[in-house]
């Protein structure tokens, strides 16, 4: 069995799965249950100044469902902890004492002045917590008060607050980033410049779930009015993966440790994050949808996967896919693939045909010799992968590299040498050679 133990910033945990700062980590009762279930660590729900904030007493959550009510996306307008600071500090101290082998990180959100940071950071450290996570990510509510995403959207603020924190902190400092920015590298760089030991991402995405079709008002609503929330769950994973990969492959930020967050529901999602450069992962929505027991599939699945790959530890997986991520301009434009439909697997639903016919390249038949038959017309196929994406039968349609001969679509010979846009003759800005 592969070794799942994790060392993130010197913080050891039995596995790389931490519960993210969120409702599941709001109090000792929940965190105890999580650790009993086997979670490697927890980031305590964000602490703030006393007096505590006040939450709405109506709906805080809503979901994007599939027809069988599976939760695909999840939205929340809950704020940071609404319990007194001392209550949280006491419970954190007790939990760390009871669970010394688990990672216990404390999320914190404070106003933008140095004195506040100097006051509260030592109080939190005194609990024995392993690290701090600075919440510069929450996009709702707290951002209206100049905290959360309001800080995370301005790199200068990130750097400033991180510096204030690092001045007094003796334990590692993780900066949690908001995805509600046009480019994730500058905020990550600002965190590094402020002295952060790591970044974690993503926090939630600005979102409105839908309207109420009866009243034609926003849904969900608090006494008739709604406000945007933060979106998370499976639906946001691709957004998170891109941001993690951007930080991993950018020379300025490549060396900062990353705690990956965003829609991790099963072990394969964790593989995505780790391979794209995350050193560990955090989970919230999946636990809120299924309960803490999902940790069993996460750890068992990851362990089995590592065994299958002949990897002895999680570290061997981290960053493995990063070298395969590049800019569009560096993709090989001489490379050709064509779709192939396996007729033994084809159920003749015709979805590939109609989407190609209506919306793409008219490259799939529907009738051959008078019979219902779907096959790719190489002379039209641009290799777009749309048919593969919509086919309901796994592996029925695959992409086949064309490595020699003539491309039936262009009539041009297949060239083995690579040609990217940077050197393409059609590019007026091309670099010769």
């Amino acid at each position, binding site marked *: 069995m592969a070794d799942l133990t994790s060392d993130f910033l010197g913080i050891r945990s039995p596995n790389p799965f931490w519960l993210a700062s969120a409702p599941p980590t709001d109090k000792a009762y929940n965190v105890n249950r999580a650790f009993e279930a086997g979670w490697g660590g927890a980031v305590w729900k964000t602490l703030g100044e006393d007096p505590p904030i006040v939450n709405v007493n109506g709906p805080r959550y809503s979901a994007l469902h*599939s*027809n*069988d*009510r599976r939760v695909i996306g999840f939205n929340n307008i809950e704020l940071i902890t609404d319990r007194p600071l001392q209550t949280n500090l006491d419970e954190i101290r007790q939990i760390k004492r009871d669970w010394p082998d688990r990672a216990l990180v404390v999320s914190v959100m404070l106003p933008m002045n140095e004195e506040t940071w100097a006051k509260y950071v030592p109080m939190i450290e005194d609990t024995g917590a392993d690290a701090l996570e600075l919440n510069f990510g929450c996009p709702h509510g707290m951002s209206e008060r100049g905290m959360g995403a309001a800080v995370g959207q301005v790199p200068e603020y990130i750097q400033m607050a991180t510096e204030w924190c690092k001045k007094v902190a003796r334990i590692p400092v993780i900066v949690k980033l908001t995805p509600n920015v046009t480019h994730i590298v500058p905020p990550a760089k600002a965190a590094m410049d402020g002295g952060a030991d790591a970044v974690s991402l993503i926090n939630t995405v600005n979102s409105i779930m839908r309207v109420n079709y009866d009243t034609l008002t926003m849904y969900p609503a608090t006494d008739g009015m709604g406000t945007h929330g933060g979106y998370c769950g499976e639906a946001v994973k691709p957004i998170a993966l891109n941001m993690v990969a951007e930080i991993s492959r950018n020379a300025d930020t490549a060396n900062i440790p990353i705690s990956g967050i965003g829609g991790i529901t099963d072990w394969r999602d964790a593989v995505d994050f780790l391979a794209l450069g995350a050193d560990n992962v955090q989970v919230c929505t999946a636990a809120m949808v299924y309960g803490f027991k999902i940790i069993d599939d996460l750890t068992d699945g990851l362990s089995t996967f590592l065994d299958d790959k002949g990897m002895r530890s999680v570290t061997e997986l981290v960053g493995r896919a990063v070298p395969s991520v590049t800019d569009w301009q560096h993709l090989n434009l001489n490379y050709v693939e064509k779709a192939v439909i396996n007729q033994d*697997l084809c*159920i*003749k*639903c*015709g*979805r590939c*045909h*109609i989407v190609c016919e209506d919306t793409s390249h008219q490259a799939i038949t*529907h009738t051959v010799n008078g019979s*219902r038959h779907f096959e790719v017309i190489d002379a039209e196929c641009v290799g777009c992968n749309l048919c593969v994406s919509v086919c*309901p*039968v796994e592996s029925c349609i695959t992409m086949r590299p064309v490595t020699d001969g003539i491309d039936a679509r262009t009539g041009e010979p297949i060239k083995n040498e690579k040609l990217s846009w940077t050197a393409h003759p059609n590019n007026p800005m091309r670099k010769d050679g």
Partner: protein
Amino acid sequence: MATPQSNANIRSGRLDKADIERNFSDLHPPLSRSEALIEADRCYFCYDAPCTTACPTGIDIPAFIQKIRSDNIRGSARTILTENIMGGMCARVCPTEVLCEEACVRNTHEDKPVEIGRLQRYATDPIFDDNTQLFERAEPSGKTVAVVGGGPAGLSCAHRLAMLGHDAVVYSRDSKLGGLNEYGIAAYKTVDDFAQREIDWILSIGGIDIRDNVALGADFTLADLCEQYDAVFLGIGLGSVNELGIDNEDLPGVENAIDYIAELRQTDDKSTLPVGERVVVIGGGMTAIDIAVQSKRLGAAHVDIVYRRGPEQMGASAFEQQLAQTSGVTIHHWAQPRRLRGDRAVTAIELEKTTLDADGRLVGSDETFVLDADVVFKAIGQKLADEQLGDELQALQLQGGKIVVDESQATSLDGVWAGGDCVVGGDDLTVSAVQHGKVAAHAIDRRLRS
């Protein structure tokens, strides 16, 4: 029934009322909303969908299922009922396993098609429950069409004519409309008086007059109709039953399956129906299954179906055959009646094994066996009721005892269209009859407007 008293083994009250009610409850209960949404999600929304091709009325099945998914139930019902005005009944009685669901591409890898029939019922039930009118009549044309027969073909034709702006007068032999929907079809397939609720909804479009308890030949003639109306549609079904052609066929206890089913359908308290201890059914179609299963569910101790060929040749689908077998009915293949035994009433039936000769023709053999029987039901098909119709159909070209029609359902007599079981190509399915009526209505409309 004819003289059941002649045999003490034929009696009512074999099961108590509660058991009978349970036995005659919905064969395919309606889907709940969550079941329907999950089932709708299984539809792949095929291009040029095979299920639609397989539907005799050409319902755009992926479209109506997509509308269930998006919670547009009224739109879904409109999609169904636009092509098949009896989409509610067909959702209950269609042998979907040999029509739309057999064509479902899901069968390729998982042998479990989308439950199209039950989804169709989910989409249409609220329309009848709430009596929601979905269709409007076109501007009145001033034309009136005579529709002979109040079954699926006639009512489908009348409704479509009404939609197209014409008036229709429906001549019904029976006191209730619906034809086999009302008087045939197993009771557990159409519970809660659905046939009449559906007809009430169909008639609510307006422009359809009903003349009941009048029969072609006895009360009016085809020539009269051709004279009085702008066009005529014949949807007269098959009024009489094929004979076994063996001795003693008139013995008490030898019954027409369709007559007993009609009585059963019209009886509220089914525990009052007389039922034999031992019941033998001759035939291999849907009617044979319906009478056998219903006899069993009424409390008959032994029910046997005898069919002269094998399971593949049975008119009843594999699902129907299994339904009979799981209901406790024994099916004997490759056997045919030779003689009915009994003095004052039938007591047994003597059967001979059959086989195919070198030319593939069915032949009897000397090998015989006997089944004791208090009742023998004949379910070997029906034919036009020529003794009642008399010379009425002389003017029409017939073939094999059925009316010849073209692709627009026009008969050989100008101005007369026909559809349903009475025409060549009629296949004993409500859904086909509905399609005939619809096609004929459009053909009549084209004629009346030309």
